[in-house]
């Protein structure tokens, strides 16, 4: 017997459907539209696509110039490629740090697991910006790490740590680590220990049992965790802006500059459209894994 809500059902579905349709789906169409329009001086700073000519004929003015600039200007292409690379490396780093942690928590005595998991999540509940700020205090030229190195006499001058790729990766991994550990823990804790015992009984060494049993079975968690880090990191703005050097021109930062400093809304929209196209496949994959996990 199934729970049925004949009249309420439509209502329950309509509320989120309409809300997300209006405020999540429809905006993308507008972004696409504005990406195709010309920049203009004024408020808002773009020209309408549909215009009346002097003879009273309605015409559509499509401007492919922004998209053409994107695919021909090496500055933008490099920003996209750099963003994808930084996000992928960050995802792998999070996996390398997060997997052993998730594994250890899943193997811990049951009454301790909640607390251990809570300790992973706790930093996530405190302000993201202020956690990024902590890394500035750690890595600045007059920061804690440099003071320590100078004090121990290991270096004679402050080492440049802040505004480097090192700071960028440290910041991203630090902020996104919980998103890796949680889905990994979810799959690892559901793993039946009987499988590992069976592998051991059949003569597999622990390391081999891990590679042939645990690792493949935790693959959904690995994929989900990687996507939860990779996809948002591609468009990350705050961390490259505050910790990365002037060379860390990732696409989120470029988009921000186009929008807020250059006030070029059509260009910012074109950047967003291409970014979205790059991420459609990963997002669809994530949703596929997510949907399977929930069922």
């Amino acid at each position, binding site marked *: 017997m199934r729970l049925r809500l004949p009249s309420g059902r439509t209502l329950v579905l309509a509320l989120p459907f309409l809300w997300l349709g209006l405020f999540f789906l429809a905006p993308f169409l507008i972004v696409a539209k504005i990406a195709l329009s010309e920049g203009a001086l004024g408020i808002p700073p773009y020209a309408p696509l549909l215009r009346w000519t002097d003879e009273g004929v309605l015409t559509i003015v499509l401007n492919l110039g922004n998209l053409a600039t994107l695919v021909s200007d090496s500055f933008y292409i490099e920003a996209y490629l750099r963003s994808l690379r930084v996000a992928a490396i960050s995802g792998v780093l999070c996996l390398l740090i997060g997997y052993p942690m998730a*594994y250890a928590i899943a193997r811990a005595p049951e009454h301790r697991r909640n607390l251990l998991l809570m300790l992973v999540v*706790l930093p996530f509940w405190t302000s993201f910006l202020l956690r990024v700020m902590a890394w500035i205090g750690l890595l600045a030229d007059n920061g804690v790490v440099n003071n320590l190195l100078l004090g121990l006499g290991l270096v004679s001058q402050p080492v440049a740590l802040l505004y480097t790729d090192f700071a960028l990766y440290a910041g991203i991994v630090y902020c996104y680590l919980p998103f890796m550990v949680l889905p990994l823990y979810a799959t690892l804790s559901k793993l039946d220990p009987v499988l590992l015992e069976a592998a051991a009984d059949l003569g597999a060494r622990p390391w081999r049992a891990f590679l042939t049993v645990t690792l493949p079975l935790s693959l959904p968690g690995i994929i989900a965790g990687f996507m939860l880090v990779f996809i948002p990191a591609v468009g990350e703005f705050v961390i490259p802006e505050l910790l990365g050097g002037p060379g860390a021109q990732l696409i989120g930062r470029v988009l921000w500059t186009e929008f807020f400093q250059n006030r070029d809304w059509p260009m910012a929209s074109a950047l967003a459209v291409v970014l979205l196209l790059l991420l459609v496949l*990963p997002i669809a994959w994530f949703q596929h894994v997510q949907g399977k996990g929930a069922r």
Partner: protein
Amino acid sequence: MSRRLGRLGLFLGVGYAFLYIPIALLVVLSFNDSRLITVWSGFSFRWYVALWNNERLIDAALLSLRIAAVAATGATVIGMAAGFALARFGAFRGRGLFGAMVAAPLVMPEVITGLSLLLLFVALAESVGWPAERGVTTVTIAHITFATAYVAVVVQSRLADFDRSLEEAALDLGARPWKVFLLITLPLIAPALASGWLLAFTLSLDDLVIASFTSGPGASTLPMVIFSALRLGLTPELFALATVIIVVVSLGLLVALKLGRVASARVGG
């Protein structure tokens, strides 16, 4: 065997050190008397006093708290409906699109969400005259939209692994579906709703990028004020603010953990 556990413990130790050393640093430096952030010159509460007198930060914090409370409540209502539909309605027309709309905001880069919502608000203002100006309302709508996804996931996973025999028994005994929902389903998913609300609240409180895009003059949220202050350099006042947030959050989570234990014990966990 014990050696292997020891190695796992080491991994955990290193991981927790990585997570907590920067936070410990914030707390310690907030009590530093010196204006130079990294030179320790004695214990002092002066930055807490300065924080208390910083009207700009306090106003922004109050504004952010107000937005977060409204946004979290809205997101909980819509997210509960979405999570319920995904967990219970089976295959319905448009499920694929619906599932995608619910899951995509979880990973959507903030710059895309922020820009697209701003452009929607501008287009709406031009065509229907609403919203007349951008500010608290537009930020709240934006926050409801992206936080809904988180609540939906929490509710959906809670509904996916819960025992439906109670609901079925009630239905067999002749209770109407809405009554079953109110008397049985809702109390059972209440912990999920509470954690979904808290999650949405925190996400809203924490958001810089989407708020920067969708806000207008005169409505600067706390992260927006912190960000502009950070661009001018670190100040110990911000460390004090971070410490206050950390203490409040830790206490809140501690209470939630205790309540959660009580709640799950009562349900028969």
